[in-house]
């Protein structure tokens, strides 16, 4: 019987709206699907800024159903304890919110899997913890709606929830090395920063968040279901979960994110020259293979010390360094898996160009800290080296802003390129080779000046 009543509530209560709360993820995440299910789960976590307020509103709306339906008097005359009824409704809402969100996640992950893009085990764990926050929001809405049974409670709670969700970002200081954000703020589900395609949260942080969210769920359930005096017991799960969760959190919020070893795992071609990408970029391997080998051939033909294989470069933004140290016999590629199906969304010629930027080297980590004009000179030198290797003119530099947004101005490139070509041919080669060597060790110096001479 209870199953039948539960099913009626799932279909006829606001549970159907709770099931739809996570549906906008279909829109938010659609362009990022090629980056794997880990990014999808992280995207859902960030989207809790919107989903939590919606869930609060749905819960509060449901809480007013008896009053809205003028059912209160009839319900008063029935013998079943009130908490039975409330528990079934709360269960229906929570289950629907979870089922709806998992369905969206499963559909999108299924699509990701079908396209061969990366399905991350850690993404499912991250998403599972996000579910607890979502359930906590639905039940909190139910509890608040019950305690403050006004017609305006659902919209006000939705608005208030939204403000609460964005408030930390507005009030908390920007996380920086000099002023790091304390780890306790990680109890706010969205305060985990951008989790990139190679990253995930540490097991300790996920555990802490799960414990805290479970405490929230229990407290909200008590408030939503229990009678007047039992409601006070809601403090207990809150206090207990904080006491257990906070010690699990790192001292600094930035330490919550680590590289996901399953995402950075290498996948290589069977034949030589070997081309390797990360598991995340696996769908791009087939398209990357030929451009990568073309780039290797060009480097071999034009430089004395050329790399023999290609490997995807993975930059650990938290550590400020690349995952693997530079090796002069490896050409590092940044794989632009921008397409929804995880495939390369860049023309082959552009890929070759990208591989030859900096004479086949990754940008040095110090470059990101350079002032704008110095960064432009640095990038100009790297682009001119690529043009020289390709034997192309500055007009052939790709200009698609989604991938080549960082390129320096065409005029600066053209001027530097002309100066390089004005040098004797042997000099040109040695200067490009020197730029490559300097970039491999990330040594000091003005790259543009070293490449095309004084006074540029």
């Amino acid at each position, binding site marked *: 019987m*209870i199953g039948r*009543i539960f099913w009626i509530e799932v279909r*006829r*209560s606001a549970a159907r709206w709770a099931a739809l709360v996570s549906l906008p993820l279909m829109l938010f995440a659609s362009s990022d699907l090629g980056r794997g299910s880990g990014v999808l789960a992280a995207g859902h976590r960030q989207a809790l800024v919107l989903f939590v307020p919606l869930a609060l509103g749905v819960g509060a709306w449901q809480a007013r159903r008896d009053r809205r339906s*003028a059912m209160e008097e009839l319900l008063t005359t*029935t*013998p*079943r304890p009130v908490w039975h*009824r409330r528990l079934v409704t709360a269960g229906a809402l929570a289950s629907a919110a979870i089922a709806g969100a998992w369905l969206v996640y499963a559909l999108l992950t299924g699509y990701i899997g079908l396209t061969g893009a990366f399905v991350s085990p850690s993404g499912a764990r991250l998403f599972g913890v996000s579910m607890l926050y979502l359930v906590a929001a639905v039940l909190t809405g139910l509890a608040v709606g019950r305690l403050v049974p006004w017609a305006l409670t659902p919209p006000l709670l939705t608005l208030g929830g939204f403000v609460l969700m964005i408030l930390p970002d507005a009030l908390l200081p920007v996380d920086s090395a000099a002023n790091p954000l304390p780890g306790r703020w990680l109890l706010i589900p969205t305060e985990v920063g951008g989790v990139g395609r190679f990253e995930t949260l540490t097991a300790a942080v996920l555990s802490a968040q799960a414990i805290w969210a479970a405490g929230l769920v229990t407290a909200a359930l008590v408030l939503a279901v229990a009678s007047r005096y039992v409601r006070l017991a809601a403090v207990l799960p809150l206090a207990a979960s904080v006491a257990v969760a906070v010690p699990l959190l790192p001292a600094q919020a930035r330490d919550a994110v680590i590289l996901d070893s399953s995402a950075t795992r290498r996948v290589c071609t069977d034949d030589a020259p070997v081309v390797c990408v990360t598991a995340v970029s696996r769908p791009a391997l087939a398209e990357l293979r030929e451009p990568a080998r073309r780039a290797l051939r060009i480097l071999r033909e034009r430089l004395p010390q050329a790399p023999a294989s290609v490997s995807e470069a993975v930059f650990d933004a938290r550590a400020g360094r690349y995952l693997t140290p530079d090796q002069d016999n490896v050409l590092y590629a940044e794989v632009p898996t921008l397409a929804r199906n995880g495939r390369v969304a860049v023309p082959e010629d552009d890929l070759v160009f990208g591989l030859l930027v900096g004479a086949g080297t990754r940008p040095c980590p110090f470059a990101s800290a350079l002032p704008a004009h110095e960064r432009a000179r640095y990038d100009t030198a790297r682009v001119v080296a690529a043009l020289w290797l390709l034997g192309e003119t500055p007009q052939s530099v790709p200009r698609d802003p989604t991938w080549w947004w960082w390129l320096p101005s065409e005029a600066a490139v053209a001027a530097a390129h002309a100066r390089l070509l004005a040098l004797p041919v042997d000099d040109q080669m040695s200067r490009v080779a020197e730029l490559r060597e300097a970039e491999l060790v990330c040594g000091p110096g003005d790259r543009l000046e070293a490449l095309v001479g004084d006074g540029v």
Partner: protein
Amino acid sequence: MVRRLEADEIAPTGYAWSVQAERLQVRAGRRLAVAGLDLALGNGVHGLLGPNGAGKTTLVRALATVLRPASGSLRLLGEDVVGGSVLRRIRRQIGYLPQEFGYYRRFTVREFVEYIAWLKQMPPADVPGAVQRAIDRVGLTDRAEDRMKTLSGGMVRRAGIAQAIVNDPLILLLDEPTVGLDPDQRLQFRALLRDLAADTCVIVATHLVEDVAAACTDVMLMDEGRLVFRGRPADLAAAAGDATHDGAGDSLTARDSLAERGYSEIMRRHREGAAR
């Protein structure tokens, strides 16, 4: 559909009256709407008549355990209406159709009646059969799978009656049950009441004197929170005598029913007596 009776349903009861009130006072807000009522009702259909504000709805709400008596005593099914397990036991045996009948608009008729059956803590195995029987009895069989929000006013009222009778209550409280019913439905409703009368104490609060005259085994008239008349429907008609004016001084004609004229005459006499 014939229902099998359980042994405990045909066993003799341990109480004389299904409803027993002594000097019962019930407040509606600050106002004393039921002011010292003595009442003892057994099985049968008891019509509760009275002008607006007479205290009918307040009395029914007290019998439905919505309102607590301000003073006096109220015994339902032989037990004092107090809180806790006694109240729960009594409520299992009550069916109630409020005057302002609210319902979940998105539920189907079957789901709604089923939900109320669950709230009335009926044995789960009995629920499907009881729900179907209640829906059949109010003539909503062909609309059982329709959403409540799609029903007409009369159908909603019938769904309200279905939820009230789903648990085969020993006390059935119906507040204005025929509002919105067409003449044919009202005839069917009266037949249902007569059917229920054998083993149920049915209390029907209404403005419609002819419903009471046609379907009730006895009639009670209330005014200003007190019982001013109790008798059979025939007594109500007999009270009409040769009355030519109602309680408000307006003319009565032969086209007004005997029961209505009797009701009016009793109210007139009561008010004249009260004025003296």
